């Protein structure tokens, strides 16, 4: 078992465990912190796949900006573990069964897929570098890039209008 395999399994176990802890944590602040751990594990996967640009963007945008926003909103509302009423545990059991059934369907559908000799190339291949992605982004995708800036502007205006008092 090489270094790549060890890193893959470590990051996968970290991602799955942290994701489960996001769902089962009672305190919303702990959920946010576990979600940051998930994002770090997924960024580790991106680095393992040599998608360096996406790894850095994932860390800056998700773990840096979005999670800080979540944390601020939670602290603004002063939520703690006893604000969520624990009623109707049958609904919870039904949710878990539904999620597990979805997992079962996915695994059963993909178990016999003919992908045995398809490999994802790890640690080499240079399409994920900033140089190549930047050329593709500003040559072929420059119009969607500019449209996304309009999207950001409208989201900003929308957030201000919605969050404004009266």
């Amino acid at each position, binding site marked *: 078992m090489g270094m790549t*395999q060890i890193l893959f399994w470590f990051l*996968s176990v970290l*991602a*799955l465990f942290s*994701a489960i802890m*996001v*769902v089962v944590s009672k305190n*919303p602040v702990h959920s946010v912190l576990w979600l940051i751990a998930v994002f770090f594990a997924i960024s580790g996967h*991106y680095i393992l*796949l040599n*998608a360096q*640009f*996406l790894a850095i*963007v*994932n860390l800056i*945008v*998700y773990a840096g*900006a*979005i999670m800080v*926003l*979540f944390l601020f*909103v*939670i602290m*603004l*509302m002063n*939520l703690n573990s006893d604000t969520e*009423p624990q009623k109707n545990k049958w609904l*919870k059991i039904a*949710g*878990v069964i*539904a*999620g*597990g059934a*979805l997992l079962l369907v*996915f*695994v059963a559908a*993909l178990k016999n*897929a003919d*992908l*045995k000799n398809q*490999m*994802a*190339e*790890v640690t080499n*291949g240079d*399409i*994920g570098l900033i140089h*190549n*992605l930047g050329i593709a*982004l500003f040559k072929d*995708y420059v119009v*969607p890039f500019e449209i*996304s800036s309009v999207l*950001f502007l*409208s*989201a900003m205006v*929308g*957030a201000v209008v*919605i*969050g404004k008092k009266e």
Partner: protein
Amino acid sequence: MPINYYIFLSVALFCIGVTGVLTRRNAIIIFMCVELMLNSVNLLLVAFSKMHHLALIGKHADAGTNAQIFVFFIMVVAAAEVSVGLAIIVMMYRNTHSVDVNFLNRLKH
């Protein structure tokens, strides 16, 4: 790594996110589980981009670049979505003094 491992990892993360959306009542945690599902799909897209890069090596040197640009745009849209969604949650908390989605049943009456 075989592509199967990435597929099953992404499926497991996605199903954990679905379970969180179905079981939790707190609107912020539901929102975080949606982010978890988005990230599992991103991971799968990046793994597939590297798979086709390996299959087409030599013919197209930049095969798979489009998938990674796609992931970048998913992140852009997710950032915009989070800002508006959190504004909606803050407004909901101001009106009902709770982030419990069970209280959002006014359309029923």
